[in-house]
């Protein structure tokens, strides 16, 4: 019994770490640019399909090293171009927030169905990043899980370091606090907006590469992922990065335990109930500001 509980907690931690990576991307882009990206789940699948094309279709050498080294620039460029081409022209309008929501919703549908058209409706499996298992006493871990956990935590730490210690990161924070003020002191606001969008694309795409090894690449997976990332950001407080971090682990744990005790179909209902209760008591979310 104890072993099972530990097992479930570990799977919760694992999910939580990858969710944190994805939700923080969404929190970042909302906190800085105030644009809400509905195509977020489609970028998750973009990561999954990118890895599949490189590893299975093209059979590139170097395995996952190649994937990670090419995926980061690829996703960054895609995100950057999409922001410049689609989101930034709308920013001049008064009701641009609503327009961005609708536009990204259309983009999401375009990409999702596009994947089905290009890659077919069947799900694709990715090879495990590392094979084998490690056992400590009675506990057995998949090496794959350990590596996924380490990569996502490293990704989060890198992100925190970039945000707090580099000039670009500090510029991003400045724009989030006061766009007009940031522009006055010479920070290129439009570039920062596009860069933030691109960074969030990279984060969710990496999440896709990591989680698709366990869950397969499914073209219909975009919506559930999008909803999950969104619920986590809202639960943690829209735009609050620290809040999203805590929320991701709470939701990951909740998901693992509800799935284990009640059954998989109750996961969504449990998450939604938690969200509604939180929003009823604290409309700004766990750590959000008024």
């Amino acid at each position, binding site marked *: 019994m104890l072993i099972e509980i530990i097992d479930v907690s570990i799977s919760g931690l694992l999910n939580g770490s990858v969710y944190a990576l994805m939700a923080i991307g969404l929190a970042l882009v909302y906190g800085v640019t105030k644009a809400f990206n509905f195509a977020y789940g489609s970028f998750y699948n973009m990561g999954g399909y990118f890895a599949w094309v490189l590893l299975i279709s093209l059979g590139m050498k170097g395995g996952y090293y190649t994937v990670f080294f090419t995926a980061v620039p690829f996703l960054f460029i895609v995100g950057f171009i999409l922001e410049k081409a689609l989101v930034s022209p709308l920013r001049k309008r008064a009701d641009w927030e609503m327009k961005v929501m609708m536009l990204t919703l259309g983009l999401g549908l375009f990409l999702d*169905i596009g994947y089905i058209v290009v890659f077919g409706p069947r799900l694709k499996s990715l090879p495990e990043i590392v094979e084998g298992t490690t056992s400590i006493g009675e506990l057995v871990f998949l090496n794959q899980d350990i590596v996924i956990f380490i990569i996502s935590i490293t990704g989060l730490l890198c992100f925190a370091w970039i945000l707090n210690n580099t000039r670009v990161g500090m510029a991003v924070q400045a724009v989030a606090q006061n766009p007009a003020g940031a522009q006055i002191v010479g920070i290129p606001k439009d570039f920062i907006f596009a860069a933030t969008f691109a960074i969030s694309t990279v984060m969710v795409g990496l999440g896709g590469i990591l989680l698709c090894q366990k869950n397969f690449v499914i073209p219909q997976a975009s919506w559930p992922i999008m909803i999950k990332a969104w619920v986590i950001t809202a639960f943690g407080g829209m735009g609050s990065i620290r809040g999203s971090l805590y929320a991701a682990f709470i939701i990951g744990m909740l998901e693992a335990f509800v799935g284990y005790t009640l059954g998989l*179909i109750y996961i969504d209902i449990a998450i939604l109930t938690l969200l509604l209760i939180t*929003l009823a008591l604290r409309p700004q979310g766990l750590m959000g500001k008024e």
Partner: protein
Amino acid sequence: MNLKSMVTFLAVTYGLIGIMPLFVGDSVIIMRILTMILIWSIVASCWDVIMGFAGIFSFGQVAFFVIGAYSSAILSVSLNVPPVVAMLMAGMITAMVGVLVGLPCIKLAGPYIALVTFAFHMALKPFFSGPLGKAIGSGGSRGILSVPPIKIFGMAFSSAELVPFFYLALFLTLICSGVIVAILKSYWGTAFLALKDSEDFAVSLGISAFKYKLMVFGITSFITGLFGALYVHYVGILSIRVLSGQVFTTLMIMIVVGGIGQYPGVVLGAVFTVTAEQLLRPLGIYRFVIMGGLVVAVVLLLPDGITGLIRKLFPGRQEKESRSIETHKSSLEGVG
């Protein structure tokens, strides 16, 4: 748009749709398209009222439509309620659900409302296909296969007799459009706009945000539920496929093409979208790629939809006046 041009626009559009059966009454496909145009135009109009006029980012419109459809179907199949009564009850049930969903949304800001309403939409699928839905008679993932047609004074209206059903739908559409126009042009409509433009200022003038936001949820979900019920008695079958992302996006294309917050424009959006969807049907799955791309293109190129385009091509008196003021201003700025 002022009241006169709004009513004229609606009268001309629905009038043209209304006389179509005289010429094409024999064609099954065209009659089906026309009926669906009527149903979707009202559902999309309600969405435009809540999103474009009241400024509430509600993404629960399809959910309300489906709740109306399921309530009416379950009432008439499991409890043998006559369809006309079931439709009205479905409208009321949907209105109650709408108010319940609206309650947490009053305090919340933009994207949170979108999240709560959309999560509500997503939760309906496991609800109706799971054991809870089966217990109330939703038929699980198989759905409800034999919904009885509407009977009024012994006359049956169903998809077997397309022309009579079309006129029944037209009748309801006209009534509901009348209600929507009356709301938009009354004190309520002004209150919605005031709350959208500046909630703090509107509240300081004594407009109750609580009351009007709940009211807009209640009224639009009642009409949406009623049309959901009309839809289910028309097609006769119902399953959770109505909750798919494609239906949601199709509805969204209607208001994007028609122009958000440009009320009667959305009717043209419905005409365009339903027709395009039918014409593109032979393309199979590609049509959703096209429709997704269309949303992106329309939002970028025609931010006010067809209504904005028409206004740009035929600038009316109002437009010219505001433009002359603007040129006046800019000339002043040039002097300064």
